[in-house]
């Protein structure tokens, strides 16, 4: 039995299809990432799995329980962290944690070993109101609260959105640490660079899944040559490259543009053609998940 099994799941709001016929499984103890931009349907999927919404079609199970029929069972065995900070800002760190423990009928002491690596970092501030914590600390508190009842499945909806780079990286270390306890984690993020921290990822866009695999295999599947180009005028370069023969696609990517070319394209020849562009520079680039995402999205 897989921790999460999703079969042809759809969810519509009126005419708008937030999720369109999605199927995938998350294995026991896996750290599974849901990667996609805003509006991809990530939050809707989380709300379906946490039984807060009813599916329009299809079915899914979490820890073997059906999300429609056995929703009460699911509510006791999952830990859920919604997209925005959902703790009580007017209660202290300690009070929040105790409240969540009581809600699940456990004590903080019982689960302390599980949350210790995370909670110990904010414990010095336990008397502070949760609303007065920094973004990274709020996130640690929220994760501690979501873990307090030792859930079998942890559902984290964009936990790193709006958190600084250092805290984000720390957060992923914490998730990796939780794997040792055998907790299955489904986490969503709009940041492509975080995908490599997951064991497997699903790329999703506009309610559909574009591809599911390990981050390495997803990158390997990028079968075209990729270059990074730059020039003094980046904007006109983008336009020029898109109209150059042999160039499949060109899009902004950090401080360079990424350019995908087909088999026939001769790079030396292309370089000659571009000598008239001020400070033109071209280097070979390694494909990333973002390149793959853009490729899949445009298909």
């Amino acid at each position, binding site marked *: 039995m897989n921790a999460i099994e999703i079969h042809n799941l759809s969810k519509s709001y009126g005419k708008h299809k937030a999720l369109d016929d999605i199927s995938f499984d998350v294995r026991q103890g896996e750290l599974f990432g849901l990667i996609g931009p805003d509006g991809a349907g990530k939050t809707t999927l989380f*709300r379906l799995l*946490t*039984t*807060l*919404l*009813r599916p329009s079609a299809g079915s899914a199970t979490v820890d073997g329980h059906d999300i429609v029929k056995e929703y*009460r069972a699911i*509510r*006791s065995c*999952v830990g*859920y962290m*919604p*997209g*925005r*900070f*959902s*703790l*009580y800002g*007017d*209660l202290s760190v300690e*009070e929040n944690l*105790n*409240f*969540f423990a*009581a*809600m*699940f*009928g456990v004590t903080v002491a019982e689960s302390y070993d599980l949350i210790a690596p995370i909670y110990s970092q904010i414990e010095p501030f336990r008397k502070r109101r949760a609303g007065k914590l920094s973004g990274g600390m709020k996130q640690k508190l929220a994760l501690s*609260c979501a873990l307090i009842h030792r859930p079998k499945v942890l559902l984290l909806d964009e936990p790193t959105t709006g958190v600084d780079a250092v805290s984000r990286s720390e957060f992923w270390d914490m998730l990796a640490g939780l794997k040792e306890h055998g907790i299955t984690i489904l986490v969503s993020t709009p940041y492509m660079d975080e995908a490599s921290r997951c064991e497997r990822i699903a790329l999703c866009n506009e309610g559909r899944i574009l591809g599911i695999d390990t981050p390495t295999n997803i990158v390997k599947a990028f079968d075209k040559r990729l270059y990074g180009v730059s020039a003094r005028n980046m904007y006109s370069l983008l336009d020029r490259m898109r109209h150059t023969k042999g160039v499949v696609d060109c899009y902004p990517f950090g401080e360079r543009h990424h350019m995908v070319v087909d088999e026939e394209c001769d790079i030396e020849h292309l370089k000659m053609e571009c000598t008239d562009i001020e400070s033109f520079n071209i280097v070979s680039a390694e494909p990333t998940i973002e390149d793959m995402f853009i490729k899949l999205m445009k298909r």
Partner: protein
Amino acid sequence: MRHNFGSFVKKESLHILRDKRTMLVVMLIPVVLMVLFGFAISTEVNNVNVAVVAPERTDGVSDAVERLAHNDYFTFCGYIDESEIDKELRTGEVGAVVVFATDYDRRVAQMAEGVPTAPLIQLIVDASNINTASSATTYMQGVLLGTQSQQAMFETRMMFNPQMRSAYNFVPGIMGLIFILVCAMMTSVSIVREKEMGTMEVLLVSPVRPVKIIFAKMIPYFAISCVVLVSILLLARYLLGVPMSGGVWGIFSLSLLYLMLSLALGLLVSTIAKTQMAALLISAMVMMMPILMLSGMLFPIENLPIFFQWVSNIVPARWYIDAVRKMMIQGLPMMAVWKNCAILLGMTVVIMGVSLKKFNDKLE
């Protein structure tokens, strides 16, 4: 899992206690309203300025004027000429003018012998405020007729509230209003706040039943309302001197029932409203207006158009205010208002049932 119910109640109480401003407002509103309605706003006849037109200042006229001048409710502003009446009333210098007939004494004597006679006193009253005008007129007639009372065909006695003090009338009204404000508004806002902040999502994805979450929310508000209730009753008794002759326990029990009803209403609002602002507006507008207009708090229900009399039947405050008036002022025991109690109880059960049914453990 009884221990988690306690921690829910504790959490709600902390929310309330830490929001000092709201707490202060809730505790102060009743006091301010009581003082305001009890002292400042009144329909009683008070300090009506009266001028007198008397062509002949005979002994009889002086007697009548004397009685008027010595009355606390009227201020005698002196004698004026007939030609000045219009000016004085227009400028608002006086609120009423008493005009004595030329042969006042003779006609009084005639009346004493039982001979029918033409009117001997004319009252000219500024009726721009009808409430003051009509009660001033009635009261002035009584004062002026003084010695002729043996001839009056009716003897009137005002029972239960002989001085017609408006505070007596307003205290039950304020109670009807305040508890809706405190209970319904605050519970609905606090439930909707959880929806708005996203914490409801986390609460729902837990083994706790929604019913438990809701009842835990109601308890602290119920406790606050009880404090407010006690303070209103104390203020009414010792500051405004309301008799409470029917026994304070009856009023207290009835009020507890009304509190539950208000909490149920708050819950109903929270199932409808999506934002705190909407919850506030619904509680303030949709609930306060009928209470002010249709509950008999300000206007007697008998004076309403038939249609609104029907509508007033579904306004819970109507039944509560009516019952409190009976117990507080007329001194009836709780048994005498059993009908009101039954109606309120019925309403509570229905509203509570509907809102619990409507309260969704999903987000849609």
